[in-house]
């Protein structure tokens, strides 16, 4: 097992290295000049040249890349050219917002998707399966922004059940400790604010979780149906076990593997979806920050945040692969 883990970690290194080259060249090919962006209206040729020198932008590209790589290996992700704060600081401040949203969406997708998939598989001949199929078809066909705006209109504007946007009522102030709103409100001893934060979380989580919900439902249904046809399931039924016991002990235990893999794969999609969800719901997270950085030509923020996104994506894939190998020994020796 240890050998397998080492092999998988080593195989991620060239990808990260390749990614650093791609992002570096990508950013340096972007139109616009970071120095001019930094100076804004005050840009004069002399000042721009000075800033370019300070930022090292007057060096040959390979020197700049090597400097960038050295900094990266020391955990230095550069500074924003707009506000001059280290990228890592802003990222750390905003990342918990994205994690909170992503986890809530994942809980929604898994919590509903798996029971829904099992339910559909149990009623393949009935109308119930049809209804679940239609739900999952809508799930993968409705863009996050359409669903998000519709939820905002119906649930917030018309029914007044939940707030439209943001992470907390603007009149509430909570000291930032972890930047996870649900945790910070509890740390501040404010159960009312906790409930408010939870209410703010529901609509964005549903909008973001709709696609993974559809995919998890589909894969659970397919996986349960696959296992359902196995001989050992027939044997279990033939020896008179209750349907519930057959389901829990014989079907689900074997149907888990593909479902777990797909759940892991959804994390990348959720991070990407967070970009749009955060824009729709004015959610203070990394996704909206990246979009703003691209619009502001804030090069180092774009470069570093995409690299961190990719790093997280690879790390999650690695964890899923290792978990999969743990559950299924045949993988380790392949």
């Amino acid at each position, binding site marked *: 097992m240890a050998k397998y883990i080492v092999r998988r970690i080593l195989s991620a290194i060239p990808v990260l290295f390749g990614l650093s080259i791609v992002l570096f060249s990508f950013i340096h090919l972007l139109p616009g000049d970071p120095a001019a962006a930094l100076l804004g209206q005050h840009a004069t040729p002399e000042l721009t040249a000075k800033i370019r020198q300070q930022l090292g932008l007057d060096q040959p590209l390979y020197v700049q890349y090597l400097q960038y790589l050295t900094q990266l290996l020391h955990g230095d992700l550069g500074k924003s050219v707009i506000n001059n704060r280290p990228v890592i600081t802003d990222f750390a401040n905003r990342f918990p917002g994205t994690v909170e949203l992503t986890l809530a969406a994942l809980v929604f997708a898994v919590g509903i998707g798996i029971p829904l998939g099992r339910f559909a598989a149990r009623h393949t001949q009935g109308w119930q399966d049809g209804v679940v199929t239609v739900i999952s078809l809508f799930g*993968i066909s409705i*863009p996050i922004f359409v669903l998000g705006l519709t939820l905002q209109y119906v649930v917030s504007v018309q029914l007044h059940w939940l707030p439209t946007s943001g992470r907390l009522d603007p009149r509430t102030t909570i000291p930032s400790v972890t930047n996870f709103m649900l945790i910070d409100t509890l740390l501040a001893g404010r159960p009312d604010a906790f409930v408010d934060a939870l209410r703010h979380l529901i609509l964005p989580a549903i909008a973001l979780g709709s696609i993974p919900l559809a995919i998890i439902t589909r894969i659970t249904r397919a996986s349960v149906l696959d296992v359902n046809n196995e001989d050992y399931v027939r044997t279990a039924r033939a020896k008179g076990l209750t349907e519930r016991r057959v389901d829990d002990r014989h079907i689900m235990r074997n149907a888990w593997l593909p479902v777990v893999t797909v759940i892991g794969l959804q994390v990348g999609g959720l991070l990407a979806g967070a970009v749009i969800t955060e824009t729709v719901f004015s959610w203070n997270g990394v996704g909206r920050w990246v979009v703003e950085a691209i619009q502001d030509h804030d090069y180092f923020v774009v470069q570093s945040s995409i690299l961190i996104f990719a790093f997280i994506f690879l790390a999650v894939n690695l964890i899923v692969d290792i978990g999969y190998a743990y559950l299924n020994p045949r993988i380790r020796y392949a």
Partner: protein
Amino acid sequence: MTATATPARRTAPARASRGLWRDALARLTRNGPALLGMFFIVVFVLAAVLAPVISPYDPIAGSLANRLQAPGTAGHVLGTDLQGRDELTRILYGARISLQVGVISVIMGLAIGGTLGAIAGAFGGAVDNVLMRMVDVLLAIPGILLAIGIVAWLDRGLPQIMLAVGMTNAPIFARILRGSLLALREADFVVAARSIGATPLRLLLRHMLPNALTSLIVAATLALATAIIDVAGLGFLGLGPPDPRTAEWGTMLTDSTKYLREAPYLIFFPGIAIVISAIGFNLLGDGLRESLDPRLRR
């Protein structure tokens, strides 16, 4: 060979196969959901092609005197938008952009991804390794971020959006084609062709590619649905066509978000258009998958 199939014992007479594609087409025309999908796609394509014939209005110029007319107003079935332009007209013209950008971006993705996948799958070994690591790099960047980055890099414009959306699909197509080709490399008919001296190029083009295409066709059909959604997503983020007056579904939604209370229909109608066209391609894609590989059918 004549189609004189021997009847199997106590079962219906076996039907002679008419070839993969004709069999698949026959199965597809019996697949209800796929037919519904095709119907949605036909409506979508007709809306795009016939937009100027169906609507008497200009999709770009409007009169402020007519702004925010409710749906059902005489002459404006779906109402008018903030600039007094007919909403139905803009949705019809929006279908043109979605169809055009969706189809061309998937073709671009197929060209880039297909070439990479074909080379990797046909050669294997070091070539495969290097190309697949490149694909891994692209796959490690979340799709919409990659698309946003490309549009930001190349500036806004329809060709840029096509390339951006195409690039998000390319690594997926590369993976799929490579996987199918690798599985075929040791298939009996490929080994046979190789043993009688077929050149690697002939092996790839004549024997392996035609057999590897089915999964790629399914993936491309499903990718059309995501391409339409991604194009609208870029528009929604303000990275749509450079002229902000252009009738593009995502851009239309962004323009209307501030009027969610007063004119929610400006969100619903373009939203429904996006969803119906995406459902159309998703249903057709699923139907094609089942028709091309009947074992998947449940």
